């Protein structure tokens, strides 16, 4: 990897910027991560991206750790650490300073306005995330059925989604998809 420092710098810049755009959670920035990793920099295919998202969802820990996996696929362990620190560091530093000024956040009018204004945008972005992952993951009828079944189980029953993830992995392992 002769251009590894250049790649690390790209990772650092992209994820530092992205950390400020993740409104209402890291999951809202997934479509942009997909665009960068697949379309702009050609670090991976759309299918690989969906698989990394799936691994991050199945493993314990905050959602933001998807960036660790992306960074690692691009530039090994240094890439994983750079992506993780840059996705958390700069934006959290700003958040930390802001939090000191807002001890009584919930009561202020601005808080209510910000919340009311940002929620519809982040809902749309989570929907975009779901669409992009589904389009990359569902390559035929068997995978479409798994997606539909997992949605139904998660949305209309109290069964833990972990069972659905485990069952789907086994179905895939048995060669049915």
């Amino acid at each position, binding site marked *: 990897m002769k251009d590894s420092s250049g790649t690390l710098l790209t990772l650092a810049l992209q994820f530092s910027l*992205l*950390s400020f*755009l*993740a409104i*209402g*959670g*890291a999951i809202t920035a997934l*479509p*942009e991560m997909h665009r960068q990793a697949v379309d702009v920099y050609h670090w991976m295919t759309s*299918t690989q991206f969906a*698989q990394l998202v799936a*691994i*991050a*969802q199945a493993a*314990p820990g*905050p*959602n*933001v750790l998807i960036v*660790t*996996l992306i960074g*690692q696929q691009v530039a090994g362990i240094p890439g*994983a650490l750079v992506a*993780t620190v840059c*996705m*958390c560091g*700069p*934006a959290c530093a*700003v*958040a*930390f300073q802001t939090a000191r000024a807002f001890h009584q*956040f919930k009561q202020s009018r601005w*808080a209510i*306005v910000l919340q*009311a204004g940002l929620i*519809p945008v*982040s*809902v*749309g*972005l989570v*929907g975009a995330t*779901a*669409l*992009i*992952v*589904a389009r990359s993951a*569902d*390559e035929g009828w068997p*995978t479409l059925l*798994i*997606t539909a079944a*997992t*949605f139904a189980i*998660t949305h209309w029953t109290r069964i833990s989604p972990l069972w*659905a*993830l485990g069952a789907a*992995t086994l*179905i*895939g392992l048995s*060669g049915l*998809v």
Partner: protein
Amino acid sequence: MTEHVLAPPPTIVVPTTTDLFLGFFQIAISGFGGVLAWARRVIVQECKWMTADEFNELFALCQFLPGPNIVNFSLIYGSRIRGPAGATAAVLGLMGPPTALMILLGSLYSRYGALPQSRGALAGLAAAAAGLLISTAVSMAEPLARKGIGNVLIAAVAFVAVGVLQWPLLGVLAVLVPLSIARAWRRS
């Protein structure tokens, strides 16, 4: 019965730096598919570091600050309780072990991900993860739909621009966020 009567009323416990590390470590490793539910359970119910109201207030603040919500939460809470050492302990507890686990999983993926068996398993897992994400999106959209057509329109524009047309996020947010906040301001 007597013990129940004599039990002290629920009081707030002030965690030490070690408690902060261990508490956020527990939240991180229990939190499959996001950690909010576990954060509430560990911090409010098990450790009694905050009341439910205090938790909601701080979490609401973290949601509207830039950066990953739960990382903001651990940083701000750790620092309010124990200064820089507390902030460091809380963030390391939350992020350290899961990051190490992710790197391990990532190495396995790099090494074995292309094998035929793994490809099948990963295809199944990814399809299920997509279903999980759709469920998250629908649960978020349902309450929004009850708040009027304007909110739904803004969400739909964000969805189409970023999800269908795959436009860059920065441009979409630069237009949509001021518009949506201005609309909320007029209605408040």
